[in-house]
């Protein structure tokens, strides 16, 4: 172990006790109440942050929803889609070229990924990296489309950490909490979308329970 480590820890240990000794269990975080339902809160917050939200009634409709978005935004009919299981259940219209199972490259305009959870309190999407989910898909393309099952919505992030701990005994390399498109106010405090990450964020909310 390094000399610096030992010396820093020794100085800290000499100071231990200068702060009130309060056990961790004695501290509880109050959680804000939601006004209204999970989906309603979630959608409102996301829209406020500048995202677009669409709803589909089943997984099969995802591809069609993406295709309509591409047409509306006058984008080329080409998307990179992650291997997330929710996306495998979708039908894809023939005119859309779908690339699967690869990270994003500089020329990709549109990516489609899944999300493990949605947080109603703040309108936040929770994306987790892994074999099926390269992180570059979340940040490099101009348009990021995220598909989320309505049944995955939870009220607060606190409701999700326990599930993540169980699902990933080793914590994922990257957990991305995404609450809107990329933005900056670094020029004269004026809000501008699309700084470095996606300029647009489309969220597709899939109704109903997970189908196994």
């Amino acid at each position, binding site marked *: 172990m390094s000399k*610096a*480590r030992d010396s*820093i*820890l020794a*100085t*800290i240990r000499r*100071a*231990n006790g*200068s*702060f*009130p000794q*309060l*056990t*961790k269990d*004695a*501290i*509880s*975080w*109050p959680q*804000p109440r939601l006004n209204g339902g999970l989906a309603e809160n979630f959608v409102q917050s996301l829209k406020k*942050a500048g995202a677009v939200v669409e709803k589909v009634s089943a997984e099969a409709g995802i591809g069609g929803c993406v295709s309509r978005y591409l047409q509306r935004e006058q984008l080329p009919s080409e998307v990179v889609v992650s291997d997330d299981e929710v996306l495998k259940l979708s039908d894809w219209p023939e005119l859309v070229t779908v690339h699967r*199972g*690869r*990270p994003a490259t*500089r020329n990709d305009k549109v990516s489609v990924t899944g999300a493990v959870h949605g947080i109603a309190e703040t309108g*936040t999407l929770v994306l987790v*990296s892994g*074999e099926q989910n*390269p*992180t*570059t898909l979340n*940040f*490099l393309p101009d348009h990021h489309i995220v598909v989320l099952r309505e049944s995955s919505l939870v009220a*607060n*992030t606190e409701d999700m*950490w326990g599930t*993540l*701990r169980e699902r990933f005994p080793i*914590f994922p*390399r*990257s*957990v*991305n*909490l995404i*609450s809107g498109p*990329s*933005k*900056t*106010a*670094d*020029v*004269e*405090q*004026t809000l*501008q979308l*699309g*700084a*470095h*990450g*996606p300029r647009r964020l489309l969220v597709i909310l899939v109704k109903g329970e997970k189908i196994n």
Partner: protein
Amino acid sequence: MDSKAHKFRENAKVALLDPDLQRALGKARGGFVDARTQAFSCLDRHAEIQDAAKQIKDHTLSVLDEYLVLFEKNVNKVGGKVHWARTPAEARKIVLDICDDVDARRIIKGKSMVSEEIALNYALETAGYDVVETDLGEYIIQLAGEPPSHIIAPAVHKTRQQITDLFHKHHSRLGLKERVTDIPDIVNEARLVLREAFLSADVGITGANFLVAETGSSVIVTNEGNGDLTNTLPGVHIVTTSIEKVIPTLEDLSGILRLLARNGTGQEITSYTTLSTGPRRTGDKDGPSQYHVVLLDNGRSEMLAGEFKEMLRCIRCGACLNHCPVYGAVGGHSYGWVYSGPMGAVLTPLMVGLDGTKDLPNACTLNGRCAEVCPMSIPLPDLLRKIRVRQNEERITSVRARWFMKAWGFLACKPHLYGWCLRILAWLLSWLWGKPHILRLLPFVHEWTATREFPKSQGFTFQSAYRKAPNSHE
């Protein structure tokens, strides 16, 4: 960077007369304050959350060694590495060695105040690396060759016109000859230029808003997405951070996040909150293959035992800067080092020494607005006063000021003598009123009369009039 805090007075004078800076500060001032008020208007149980935040930080700091060791253990477990640095020099060396090890050429950076604290860019550039800041604000000031003037809005002091000029000067040689003047075009041009940097960098350096001990994660809170490209695209991710950033669990992160963005930018939450835990895993198709965390001390462990320990609760939200009327008047550069405003006026003397930072804790009216908004309940005015006490004890306060106080204190403890002196002074001030040519010669008076009329005294003191006619009010 070397501290220029000893030039606070000169810096402030220049700042007050700089019309561009004043325009930029004017725009920022109201904006941040209103946004914060708005953001908290819809947060349920704000006070309780703030209490818990203070408690969790105090708890963590009371056993900081345990949480740091746990954090390190968990980083090791996922294949990352934690490096400990007592000083900025040690931290710079660690980063330089890593870059050297992987034969890096281009290094991209996300915003990191610790990186500013250790003057990392200068060290990397001197060693021959091509260093590119990718946060738009940091990129702007990198082009301008300036330090940040605000901990969350580094280029808040720049006007759009100045940014247009900077981009024109630096981007022309990249073939972008047209002057961009509108904000969307400015942001787009930066996106275009920086995209190349992202895709060609060998090392990405970010800071960390928090370190989660439970998982060994470093957390960044951003809006632009540059931090995420920085920690995902290059082969090596280095986190430059400091020891007080550690928090125990993910739930604690959830709690504190409710305060951070609301206090800083006035957002409920920023666009991106990212937890990075180690290098790319088996099967991953992207992400860095190396993950390093550089833990800087730089005086923090010493602060832990002393009277400034509460400063270690600071989460760098920027609310104290945004609400400080002195910061709002003179801007961040006047403070002369990387941290500015109230938190900077406490940290800078403690980190770079009381000598050479004399003005920082004194250039404050102790109006308390900073402490009122601080989400971590840091008693900033009390801490500033404590630094003044140290200055006095270590005789950094000028001899003249110390003797003046002693003489005045002596008088103030002799009510009778004091009463007589005050009566003479009251008469004198009344006589002097309307004689500005004499008034100007008195010590300190010019500082007042330059912009304000001298107050007319009534010519007698309250106590002398009262003793003469104690019942005149009835």
